[in-house]
């Protein structure tokens, strides 16, 4: 059988364990899990749903045959018996993937039911019956319930529930709804139980800001634009024979900080003679010099991140 082998919850040898009592105990506990039986080089498994064997394999044997083979070696001195617990929600799934090993439901050998009996058996339970089933047990009833159920009794309960669910009767849906109700947990209580708490809004914002490339807000960006604009303008105006300079900066912070810088420069004199006399830069030289100024100002503004210069598009126009 294909089963999740984890840590066994119990390990015994065949001669140390009364297997019948062991099975009875598991039935009483409505145990979900499986038993692994190892004898010499042979291995077998019994899958239990609510304490009832529902599938079995042993060596090359399956189903009832496998059970018989397991029972033959179960009390031997060199038979290892291991018990593994499986979550209730996994049992049906394990039965499904191991259905070739599924045991036939135990049927009592009774005379074939008459037509009336069959009808009675299949009729949906009345409202009173349903209520009776779901009402809280009295003390006496509880005591009665704790007595070990026989294999057939437990099987009958499972079968009844399965039939009700499979036929989709109102009662089944009622039971399912009731189960759902029970399952609704209080989040605060569960969080408290495990010492968990939600992260606050401030922490979330910090994490997201860090992702966006640093703790720069829209207001910060506007401030950076203004500062950088003034610095670049001041530096350009320091160049001789510059009449005016317009600097426009458009920064973006996604995915990382960068943007466009546009500079318009107007020179005082355009005459060749005056330029030769005063030693002023020609248009190309002025453009290169302005570019160097802008680069330097960016690097000075973002000290420690010289590579940020690659994120800027610089456009210079000289008139």
């Amino acid at each position, binding site marked *: *059988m*294909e*089963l*999740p*082998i*984890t*840590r066994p919850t119990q390990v015994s040898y065949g001669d140390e364990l009364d297997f019948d009592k062991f099975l009875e105990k598991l039935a009483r506990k409505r145990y*979900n*899990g499986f038993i692994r039986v*190892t004898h010499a*080089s*042979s*291995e077998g498994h019994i899958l239990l749903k609510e304490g009832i064997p529902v599938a079995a394999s042993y*060596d*090359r044997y*399956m189903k009832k045959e496998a059970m018989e083979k397991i029972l033959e070696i179960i009390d031997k001195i060199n038979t290892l018996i291991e018990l593994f*617990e*499986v*979550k209730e*929600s*996994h049992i049906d*799934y*394990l039965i*499904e*993937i*191991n*259905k*070739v090993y599924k045991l036939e439901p135990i049927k009592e050998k009774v005379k074939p039911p008459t037509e009336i009996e069959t009808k009675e058996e299949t009729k949906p339970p009345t409202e009173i019956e349903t209520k009776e089933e779901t009402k809280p047990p009295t003390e006496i009833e509880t005591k009665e319930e704790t007595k070990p159920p026989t294999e057939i009794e437990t099987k009958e309960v499972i079968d009844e529930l399965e039939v009700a669910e499979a036929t989709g009767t109102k009662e089944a849906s009622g039971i399912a709804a009731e189960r759902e109700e029970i*399952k609704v*947990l*209080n*989040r605060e209580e*569960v*969080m408290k139980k*495990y*010492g*968990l708490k*939600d*992260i606050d809004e401030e922490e*979330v914002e910090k*994490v*997201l800001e*860090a*992702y966006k490339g640093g703790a720069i807000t829209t207001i910060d960006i506007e401030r950076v634009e203004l500062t950088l604009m003034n610095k670049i303008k001041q530096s350009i105006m320091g160049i001789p024979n510059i009449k005016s300079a317009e600097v426009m900066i458009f920064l973006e912070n996604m*995915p*990382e900080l960068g943007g466009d810088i546009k500079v318009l420069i107007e020179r005082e004199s355009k005459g060749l003679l005056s330029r030769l006399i005063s030693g002023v830069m020609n248009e190309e030289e002025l453009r290169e010099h302005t570019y160097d100024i802008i680069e330097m100002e960016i690097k000075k503004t973002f000290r420690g991140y010289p590579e940020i210069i690659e994120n800027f598009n610089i456009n210079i126009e000289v008139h």
Partner: protein
Amino acid sequence: MTRVITVASGKGGVGKTIVTANLGVALASYGESVVVLDADIAMANLELVLGMEGKSVTLHDVLAGKAPIEEAIYEGPEGVKVVPAGISLEGLRNVKLERLEETLSHLVENTDILLIDAPAGLEKDAISALAAADEVLLVTTPEVPSISDVLKTKIIADKLDVNIIGVVVNREQHDKTFLTKEEIETILEVPVIAVIPEDVEVSRSAAFGEPIVVKNPKSPVSNAIMKLAADLIGKEFHPIEPDKKGVIAKLISGLMGRR
């Protein structure tokens, strides 16, 4: 339209990479065109799980601008396409995470599903992987520290407007110290869509670089992953039943060691 699904966890070591790798293979086995991208560029091990280590071009090279993404795509089991992150620390220095988005836009062409294996934690690389996705699958173990971390990831995913498909509870054991499925759903306020039981076979298959859905398709783990894959694409799931072992096969497995 390509579905971009990020598999995220919060805490490391919950089996996220193994789930991603096997889910990718499972989806591919249903006939989907799947690309699995290892976005864990600092602690990459998707390639180890899929037995694809030592590839010459990896995501590292793509993010460093040294190679186009097409050169970093390799074919894995069941035809799943894999983009390994590469495990060179040297390459990590040159990585520009901002290129990830551009890389993804190239990857989605001719792909049904792009699965992204996100790094653990909430550093920039982890959030980049989350932000790049349309949908997110949260992976956790039923232990308190894992739930605590995945809760943070879930909150960040919500903030980023990424659709949370559900939670995959991995390495489930019936232990009373662990949280139940109902408790996990209550805390995360997200449905648990798959419960994968603990099985040593998973670690074994990962060690051999073979996904468990290929190595042992009959195991409960494989069936759980195949069911998850089927649910994700709305296909019918048929459990793979174990074979009836013959005497000789049983004898051989007995000689080779139990289970």
